[in-house]
């Protein structure tokens, strides 16, 4: 199957005319999504999808086109359209496709064929089981809004007429649940999930317990008074912060004057205890990959070591412009977009303390378990950071009363310098970053 995609991509690349560089990215996937509600199936969706994205560079100009089909005729039309589009791009001597750089890909096994053999009935059972466990676990759970099972098996290949030929395949699956706690007068919500590459990786109890705990422990939450105080970010929230950081560590953002870290390599941008690495070669990472989206072998890139900024991430274009090699950090949102620059497996180096120990150390403060409005209140260019939040107050070193309808605010720059503890509870969550508890010395809490 994957070879078939690589053949197709190679054929498109080989049809380049003299003076042209052509890249074809071909993907095909199969997915299932099941939602159960109130003991029955609410919806069951299944689909296969496929598509091609073609990039043409000619006379230092670039064009791109995509189509949600692999029909020969459509692929040929897409190539023509990309060619035509290239005529309207501005000339830029740094434009060009990747070529092999001698780095050998790691051998990653991200494909679990047994996922394809899992019956629909079994998938439905898992979602129903999850719903049942949430409902049975605590009388304060009023209802389960939805319990889901989902999986995907994706294969992709990229080839160019500059020597790139790479393919990969991966399987993934998840269960997730969203619970409502409380009586008619008050409602609190909590979500839980478990992800893996095969059904054996899924932990239904963990997903259920997480949703129940998050929803029930917020019961009785009130809006707190505004204050400046220490803030502990729960593992999932740290992932959100790392995602914001990843944009500022893109070499493309630096070159285009959109990174607050520009010209600061070698400087102390964070507390000495903070080390940040993007390592897609780590098989435990959800975003693990042998190749980047331009077909170069992924590698480990150190970004911040002991608080000092080490460097940025580059794809081929950004690297050429900066005069450095690509760090194999090309990413794309499927076949519909040309490659940009991004992280796949960003993580902080874990510390020694558990979350409980961190709470004890902090003494008085706020534990944040949920944030909202990251897209509307965090500006990765200025660094302004303001989000809606809910969580629990920390009093006497332990969790105390729940709070909601509040904001927490600081700046990204300040937060990195204010990290006073990184937990030992590192976990790989869906997306491009790992979760871990961290404590920040001071943030503004907006409330009543």
């Amino acid at each position, binding site marked *: 199957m994957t070879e078939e995609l690589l053949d197709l991509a190679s054929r498109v690349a080989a049809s380049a005319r003299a003076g042209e560089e052509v890249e074809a990215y071909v993907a095909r996937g199969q997915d299932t999504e099941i939602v159960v509600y109130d003991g029955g199936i609410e919806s069951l969706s299944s689909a296969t999808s496929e598509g091609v994205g073609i990039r043409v560079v000619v006379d230092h100009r670039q*064009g791109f086109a995509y189509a949600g089909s692999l029909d020969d005729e459509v692929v040929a039309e897409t190539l023509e359209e990309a060619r035509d589009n290239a005529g309207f791009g501005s000339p830029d001597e740094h434009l060009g496709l990747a070529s092999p750089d001698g780095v050998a890909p790691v051998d990653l096994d991200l494909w679990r064929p047994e996922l394809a053999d899992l019956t629909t009935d079994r998938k439905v059972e898992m979602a129903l089981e999850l719903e049942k466990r949430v409902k049975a676990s605590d009388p304060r759970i009023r209802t389960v809004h939805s319990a889901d099972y989902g999986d995907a098996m994706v294969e992709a290949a990229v080839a160019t007429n500059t020597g790139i030929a790479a393919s990969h395949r991966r399987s993934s699956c998840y269960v997730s649940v969203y619970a409502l706690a409380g009586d008619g007068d008050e409602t609190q919500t909590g979500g839980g999930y478990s992800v893996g590459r095969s059904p054996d990786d899924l932990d239904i109890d963990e997903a259920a317990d997480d949703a129940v705990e998050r929803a029930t422990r917020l019961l009785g939450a009130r809006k707190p008074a505004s204050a400046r105080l220490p803030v502990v970010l729960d593992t999932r929230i740290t992932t959100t912060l790392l995602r914001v950081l990843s944009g500022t560590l893109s070499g493309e953002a630096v070159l285009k004057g959109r990174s607050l870290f520009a010209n600061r390599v070698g400087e102390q941008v964070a507390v000495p205890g903070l080390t940040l690495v993007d390592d897609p070669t780590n098989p435990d990472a959800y975003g693990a990959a042998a190749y980047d989206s331009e077909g170069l072998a992924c590698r480990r890139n150190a970004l911040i070591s002991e608080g000092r900024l080490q460097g940025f991430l580059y794809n081929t274009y950004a690297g050429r412009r900066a005069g450095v090699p690509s760090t194999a950090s090309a990413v794309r949102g499927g076949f519909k977009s040309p490659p940009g620059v991004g992280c796949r497996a960003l993580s902080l180096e874990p510390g020694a303390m558990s979350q409980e120990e961190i709470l004890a150390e902090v003494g008085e403060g706020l534990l944040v378990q949920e944030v909202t409005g990251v897209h509307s209140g965090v500006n990765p260019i200025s660094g302004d950071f303001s989000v*809606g939040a809910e969580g629990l107050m920390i009093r006497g070193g332990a969790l105390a009363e729940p709070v*909601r309808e509040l904001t927490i605010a600081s700046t990204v720059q300040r937060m990195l310098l204010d990290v006073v503890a990184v937990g030992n509870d590192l976990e790989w969550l869906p997306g491009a970053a790992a979760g871990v508890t961290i404590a920040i010395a001071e943030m503004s809490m907006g409330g009543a």
Partner: protein
Amino acid sequence: MLEETVIQRVLGTALRTGGDFAEIFVEDRRSSSAHYDDGKVEELTSGRDRGAGVRVVVGDTTGYAHTADLSETGLRAAAEAASGVARGGDGGVRVVALERQHATAPYEPTVLSEDVDKSRKVELLARADDAARSAGMAVTQVSAGYGDSRRRTLVANSDGLLATGDVVRTRFGVSTVAQGDTGMQTGYEGVGRTMGFEMFDDVDVEGIARTSADRAIAKLAARPAPSGLLPVVIGAGRGAVLFHEACGHGFEADAIEKQASVYHGRVGEVVASPQVTLVDDGTMGRQWGAYAIDDEGRPAHRNVLIDEGVLTDYMWDLLRSRKAGRLSSGNGRRQSYHHLPMVRMTNTYLLAGEEDPAELVRQTPRGVYVAHLGGGQVNTATGDFVFGMTEAYLIEDGEVTEPLRDANLIGNGPEVLANIDAVANDFAMAEGGGTCGKWGQSVPVGMGQPTLRITGVTVGGTAA
């Protein structure tokens, strides 16, 4: 897009195992976009997505399958997969008599993207780049984007409905970075309408670019926003994201059905101050959220949601309205044929009041004036929602004074609606062309609103 006899056979296959309802949704979407950044045309992109989804409903269960293969074989395979949820009985052979429905398009585009030379699109971007860079020495980076799409749809179902849609949308936006002693700041301004390229006949491209640049430049002198509960005056237009989040999502019948909305069971009750009359209207020609038919084949409607403070109705899609024994309100939408439809807003707006907008500020001793908002997010079950301010000022002694840095505001829907104490007479639709995300699906939505004041909302800044 498909022959009626093929549609009938596909629906027949879908119902073969005893489904109560079957539907086929066909979509053919063509799009093009151009991105100008760092003084250069980065690239033009063209896209084509074509496929179909088949839905089979039996009892409370929905089966769905989609395919990019529009041959009869491909469609019947999808129909069979979707009908897998209905295996209780033998549906026998059913032939659905289809009746073509006609819905009037809210607006007919006059210049289609495919008839416009690509160089004209690029030229608009270059003009915007030039205008933004000329706005001030502090401007250090500009990116401008153009995008258009034409989405043709066909919906047919076992109730005999057969309807087609054809929606053309065009958008344009400019992001600016300015640099000063305090670091970098950003500004954005854009326009999005359900129109063809003729949109640019009355869109001031340079004006949009300057507004974007001015927003970034003004914030270089901004101080941190306050932290805590304050009166907030929201300027006309984009501020309507407030209603989108504070109650719009909570009025969607899928949230209501699962009792996951603070507005459950409250039709006929007072849910807002008497100055609030809120409408969702998919028939507003040219507006970003307009269409002739929704993605279930139902014509768009103008639906009054709140009338002088009283909740009059929720928004409905086909599934939820069937269960409630009523008609859909034309709010069944989906991102693409890859997705099941759900209840979504179209163009949501607050009707004008009678007060003078300047007076609202004058009567506010201390507070925040929000001139431009970013996005927002809501938890419909608790009613807590946030929205971000991207251009805002302090109000001191009844006057708009210093600019503030970006921050989110947080409130609780029913409380904020009750605390709207003044609505002005300067109604305006937002020009931005917003995208609303819900359970993983994004759709274009419009919004509008006059200047209004809320007696207290928590502002999420860092200043005391």
